[in-house]
């Protein structure tokens, strides 16, 4: 369980990182917090030819708030997200979900950009971004582009990031601070990847009908998925009774994969439970 041989580069700034990414041959793995990548390398599931350590790239760190919302640097660690009032007020969904993301030791190292770029289907962060209508800022030598979360997560560990791009930042829209938020996951042990989990946001005041709900599940499919059927069922409605039942029923249209510990019908059952419980908490 030792990583295969790889080259290691640690550029001092963003320009240096992008230059390496565009110029060097081979499979270059940007290294953020390393909490997923390093184990995968040690298992030899991932065998990059080069590790591009972003630890010194100051341009990728820090959180700023503006009229359009938050810009969270990709290298911001979970522990920093939790401690930053800009984040917990500007993106309360993140604050709600953070205690469920892995363990303290992992949160000390793991970064928001690393989780987004990896796109683990069971990770919370992609679903949080979908539910908040967040956007992902990508940067390369050719410039910057911003991709909606809905268009970013393409499949199992597959994203819209091109090989010469880095995830630079996550943009959280300004209305994320005002929307109601819900989160619930079912993990066998605290900090485990969930068997099923859901993140959601909605407009409207507490107790009022859900305005423009956005509902994203994780741990069910090959990626975090929006539950558009459930969103339609709950739109401008109280999440109760037949409406809630219809929203839960609509989940059977989701592309659900079983895993080692739960076949698809169990996942579907649990998806309905987490949706009901997340809504009950709103």
């Amino acid at each position: 369980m030792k990583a295969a041989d790889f080259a290691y580069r640690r550029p001092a700034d963003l320009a240096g990182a992008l230059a390496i990414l565009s110029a060097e041959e081979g499979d270059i793995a940007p290294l953020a917090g390393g909490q997923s990548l390093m184990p995968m390398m040690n298992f030899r599931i991932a065998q990059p030819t080069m590790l591009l350590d972003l630890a010194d790239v100051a341009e990728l760190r820090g959180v700023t708030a503006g009229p359009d919302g938050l810009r969270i640097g990709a290298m911001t660690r979970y522990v920093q997200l939790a401690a930053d009032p800009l984040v917990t007020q500007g993106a309360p969904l993140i604050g709600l979900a953070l205690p469920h993301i892995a363990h303290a030791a992992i949160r000390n190292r793991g970064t928001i950009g690393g989780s987004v770029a990896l796109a683990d289907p069971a990770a919370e962060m992609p679903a949080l971004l979908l539910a908040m209508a967040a956007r992902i800022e990508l940067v390369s030598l050719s410039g910057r582009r911003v991709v909606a979360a809905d268009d970013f997560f393409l499949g199992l560990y597959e994203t819209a990031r091109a090989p010469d791009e880095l995830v630079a930042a996550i943009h959280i829209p300004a209305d994320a601070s005002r929307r109601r938020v819900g989160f619930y996951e079912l993990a066998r042990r605290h900090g485990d990847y969930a068997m099923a989990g859901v993140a959601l946001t909605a407009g409207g005041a507490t107790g009022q009908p859900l305005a423009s709900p956005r509902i994203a599940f994780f741990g069910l499919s090959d990626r975090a998925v929006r539950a558009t059927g459930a969103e339609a069922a709950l739109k401008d409605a109280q999440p109760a009774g037949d409406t809630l039942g219809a929203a839960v029923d609509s989940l059977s249209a989701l592309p659900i994969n079983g895993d080692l510990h739960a076949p698809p019908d169990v996942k579907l059952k649990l998806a309905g439970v987490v949706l009901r419980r997340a809504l009950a908490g709103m």
Partner: protein
Amino acid sequence: MSGPKLSFDQPNRYIGQPVPRADAQRLLMGRGRFVDDMQAPRMVHAAFLRSPVAHGRIVSLDVAAARRMPGVVAVITGADLVGVVEPYVGVLSHLAGLRSAPQMPMAVGRVRWQGEPVAMVLAQSRAEAEDAVAEIHLDLEDLPAATDMERALDPDAPVIHPEFGSNLAWTRTVNVGDVDAALKGQDITIVEREFRFGRHTGVTLEARATLVEYDPAEDQLTVLYSGQAPHMMQFIFAKHFGMLEENVRVISQDVGGSFGIKIHTYGDEIAAAAAARMLGRPVKFVADRFESFMTDIHARDHAVRGRMAVGRAGHIVALDFDDVTGIGPYSMYPRTSAIEANQVLNLTGAPYVVPNYRATSKVVFQNKTLMCQYRAVGHPIAMAICDGLLEEAAAAIGMDPVEIRRRNLMRDDSYPRTSASGMKLDDLSHQKALEKLVEMMDYARLRENQARLRQQGIHRGIGFVSMVEVTNPSPMFYGIGGAPIASQDGATVRLDAGGGVHVSSSVTEQGQGTNAILQQIVAGVLGVDIARVKVTTGDTRTTPYGGGTWASRGAGIGGEAALLAAQALKEQVLDVAAVILQTQADKLDVADGSVVDAGGGAARMTLSDLARTVYYRGNELPSDMKPELVATRHYRVTDMPFVFTNGAMAAEVEVDVETGFVRVVNFWAVEDCGRVINPRLVDEQVRGGVVQGIGGALYEECLYSEDGQLLTTTMADYLVPMAAEMPDIHVAHIETPTKTSILGAKGAGEAGTGGAPAAVMNAVNDALRPLGASIFQMPMTPARVLAALGRAGH
């Protein structure tokens, strides 16, 4: 037991006190000396190519490219070890009929389980060794695999060892009384259930590890070995390399947990030792977590159909079951893989009066990782069968589960006696343990709470187990069957000139506090400050010959040997002191490191003064007095095959019927391990054991694909119980010392693991019963609980 009476409650008598472990501080400061901390000059690292399939024929094995890889010193295949290592066979003569095929450290010609070592690379670093493993070309012809133990005896099942004609390794039936007649009796209620127990493994914090050095000049093999039976391993290395046993030195320093995992003969370690001999260079092998899951022994994996008949008043009339267990393609050497099934037959029903008992176990070969003894061997299965059926029977006749136990437990005043399976029992306290349990858990209030919560749709359940634990084994466990496993242990206690005391013992420390209790016993018996007692364990060259620590024998057997040795040394000290002080030995005692007047009198001379007189100024002693100030005593259990302990445990669980999640809310354990030497250590042994038992009940399982691929190869897939999910575990003791020793200590290491699964299972079923659901498959995962409820997972 003869011998002077000891008082265990005087000042400076550490036995029974919650003394902190001396080595805890050292380990917490990072000063542990684990095998992987050790380096040797010219050391190379081993990595293995392992079979990727469950069953296959080796068509070709090409290691040429691997040999050319950077850092590679050698590549050794299974065939290279033919003639170097004598094959081993995991059978014992007292398990009549047990058969297994000769085994080599690495596969020769055929692979029989996924993970079986095929070739070994020795390189300058482990990373380079792994790089080279990837360059070995192994061409395999897939053979049909027998993976499902319940179909391994079918006529069309692939036979793993053709010479045997079937995959049956061993079978035994116990038949006492007349079960068939009893089952036809009047006014009886019969419950019948199918139980399934998943495969577990031990998941030691420190993986299996060895560092082997060979010195050809002296034909000396030195093995640093993370394990629990150094003398057994000494024999095995010597026998299978054709060496003299004294030329093999096995050293087990700090060991990061073992749980029975590290007490077996693994091909990896034997191959590493063979490489050290072939290369004349030190070889280190440390299993990584992948390898641990794939090659550490697995355990449990039983399928049982059982039934119990009870009379109207709840008395057990008959207990009858059939068990099948799959052990992998070989019986593990040298302890064999039939012991767990044997324990299931021996232990099921042992707490109760069972007039008619019939049980059969079939042990079958299959193409999976080998199974063998892991903490609480057979106990969780035996306890779950009997206490699971008992609570089902209680429910069927409308009786409280505590009441049905009261009516069936062996009476505390009825010993010595035998169990239904014929096991000799003595000094047990099932009735006292149950009553203490009921009191400590406030049972009546819990039932009220349960009923109130049910009104709110919260499904709590309360489950019990009354259990026995096999501890302090005599030669009847292994030695009688020809195993190179000592059932006796020894201790040497020495007084040095400075007044310090050295203990050397053949039992071993693997993190549970063996060294601490040896220190307590010797300090207490001798009458010295515990800080002046140093303990050495785990070295075949410097400790007395013995069995090591397993089957909960360290305290009961190793502790008694230490007590006897300390007593003998004390007698010497008093004899010398009597001469120097011109009095009689029986008028003197030792306290706080000094010879004192007996009966709490004044200090007369320090032990250091006495020892200096003996060692430096022997001229002051009479010429015919030749004190040694060192004493060795050995001890084995002679009156009983095993010294059983007993306990009563209860779990309170909450079942989320929407998700199938089970939360253990509370756990209570009353344990009677005889004399408690260190309550702090015993309590934590019980708690740790309970946690492992909860792991087995709810979380842990080695899952395989149908074609025999292990799917749970990381800590993310194989779920060990974690602190956040664990309940408060309330522990209480009853002390019924065993009459087989002065110390009176029985074992305490496995009770929690043995009892907790049954209690948790019974609690889950108690919660599910109003919903008309039940579950008898462990681990009780959310998917299985939902399936039991008919809500998903069919």
